[in-house]
């Protein structure tokens, strides 16, 4: 069953001083339901632009984006969003943050409370429901962001460098949580990251994107996410297969970066 269908999408930003930047050129792909797609690439490759188009925050200048059979015309509760810095509402406590989506859609209260209880347990914050956002650590805040997005039961979860602001240790733990949520909920996830290791570990499909114009350069089908929960993550990341892939992709990205530098005469 196809979930996301992206067909020859172009995105051109007009610059205020005239001229334009081609952020995406002829991007096409299809994503089956329940896949975890990671987007990787040097800065300026349009991965966040692509995510924002999927979320409906931006309208592509050309091409179509479908979720199921319906075209994406704007942001909606069927596509949950997780940002690098939580974007949590600090005037609400953890419970109210998580229940924000259902409350906005006037879902039955008792049901919402039950969902919140379940989600708090799922993300390991069962004792923190009454806490304020600023009383939580960065990792805990991202857990709240994940739970808040899940509370709406979206078809697709879009994550824009969700673990980018965390320290290395917390980041590894949170990668496990993302994998766990993906396995348990069977949601389609699209995740943008800067970290090659993270893209390999979390993605069961990986696009390496290239800049100027932004496009999908390489596509990988990856085996690691499938077994990521069953083996020790560090062992997996230290396995020869993983390292081989990592170095391969790193050198691809390095090559692109060098090309940009050469192009700019830098």
């Amino acid at each position, binding site marked *: 069953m196809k979930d996301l269908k992206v067909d020859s999408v172009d995105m051109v930003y007009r610059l205020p001083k005239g001229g334009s930047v081609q952020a995406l050129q002829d991007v096409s792909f299809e994503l089956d339901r329940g896949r975890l797609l990671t987007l990787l690439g040097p800065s300026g490759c349009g991965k966040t632009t692509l995510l924002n188009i999927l*979320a*409906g*925050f931006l309208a592509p200048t050309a091409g179509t984006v479908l979720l199921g059979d319906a075209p994406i015309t*704007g*942001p*909606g*509760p069927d*596509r*949950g*969003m997780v*940002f690098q*810095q939580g*974007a*949590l*509402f*600090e*005037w609400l406590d953890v419970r109210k943050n998580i229940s*924000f*989506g259902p409350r*906005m*859609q006037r879902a039955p209260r008792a049901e919402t409370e039950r969902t919140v209880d379940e989600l708090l347990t799922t993300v390991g914050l069962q004792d923190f429901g009454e806490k*304020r*956002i*600023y009383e939580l650590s960065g990792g805990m805040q991202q857990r709240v962001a994940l739970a*808040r*997005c899940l509370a*709406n039961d979206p078809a697709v979860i*879009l994550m824009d460098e969700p673990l980018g602001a965390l320290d290395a240790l917390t980041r590894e733990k949170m990668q496990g949580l993302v994998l766990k949520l993906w396995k348990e909920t069977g949601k389609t996830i699209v995740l943008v990251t800067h970290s090659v290791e993270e893209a390999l570990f979390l993605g069961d499909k990986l696009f390496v994107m290239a800049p100027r114009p932004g496009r999908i350069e390489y596509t990988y089908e990856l085996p690691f996410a499938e077994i990521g929960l069953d083996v020790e993550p560090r062992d997996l990341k230290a396995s020869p297969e993983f390292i081989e892939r990592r170095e391969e992709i790193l050198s691809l990205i390095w090559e692109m970066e060098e090309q940009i530098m050469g192009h700019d005469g830098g």
Partner: protein
Amino acid sequence: MSDNVGVGVHDQETLETAADDEGGFLSGLRPASGLLPGSGSPEDRKTVSFGDAAAVRSLPLWSLIALIVLAALWWAGTRAWGFPDDFRAATAAAYEQKDPPEALTDAKLLTECRLAGIAATEAGEPAPCNEDAYSQFLSPAAFPTPADTWRGFNTLRTEGFKNITLWEHARTSLTRVGVGMLVGSLVGIPIGFAMGLSSRIRGFFDTPVELLRPIPPLALIPLFILWFGIGNPSAFALLIFASVWIMIISARAGVRDISLSKVRAAYSLGASKRQILFRLIVPNALPELFTGFRVALGVSWGTLVAAELVGTDTGLGSMIFQARNFFRLDVVVVGIIVISIIGVLLDLIVRMLESVLIPWRGKGR
């Protein structure tokens, strides 16, 4: 984010270690300088900070000391050093014999002393009290002594000045400032919000706001008296004028304070435009609004004395100006002190409300 403002300075030794790196691979690495023999305990560590700006709370002890110093200066500056005690006692006794008995103030004592001196000189007798016999920095005619002020305070409290008690003056003033703030906020906040939300409205209101904002309310007194007449209406208009621009600007800043990712997150959670306005932008603007409210309250309270110049007969400001006409300096000083204390209390109350109502202030993002 840390509040640490202190500027650390690298230990000399660390810098030298990097400089004399001439060995092979990794030979530049040394143990941390603190562990080197002879480098001393951590207490000897050389660090530099500029003042202690990082200490946000001032020490209450020092605030208390400052208060005592001020009081002592007042007492010492107005006290008649070396004043003959027998003259004071005799005059006080004479005042008690009066019908009705009168309390002897320091200001009256000075007058009596002068009169007695003049009378004695005319009669060719030695003066019982010579003004030059004592020294003081501030004559009670120019600044009331603490004792006179306290007496004045008590009279104001019980009998009042011109039959209106101090509390009534204070209550009237507070009501005026309250109404001014209320109307200023009710008008200013919606305009500020609209300016923050729509570039058209922003463009429209920007010029008038920027042109009217710098006008000191005092400059408008002649016009306001012509337009609104003498008394309360003009005072209200001045106080509204003092607060409304501040509220507009803080509401506008509060709206613009919202981060794009929060708005996007809310849209992705299925919120409507209306819900984003009331569930997101309004609560997010509260800290800025509170700051604006605090500033506007301070400015309004400060404008009050001027506002009450426009012919009102109650209020702390008008009390001061009427007392001035009767040379009741004790009443003037009591009025000044009460205005100051109420100003401090108002600020404290708003700050307390702030920490109760918006505990997330400054902790967002």
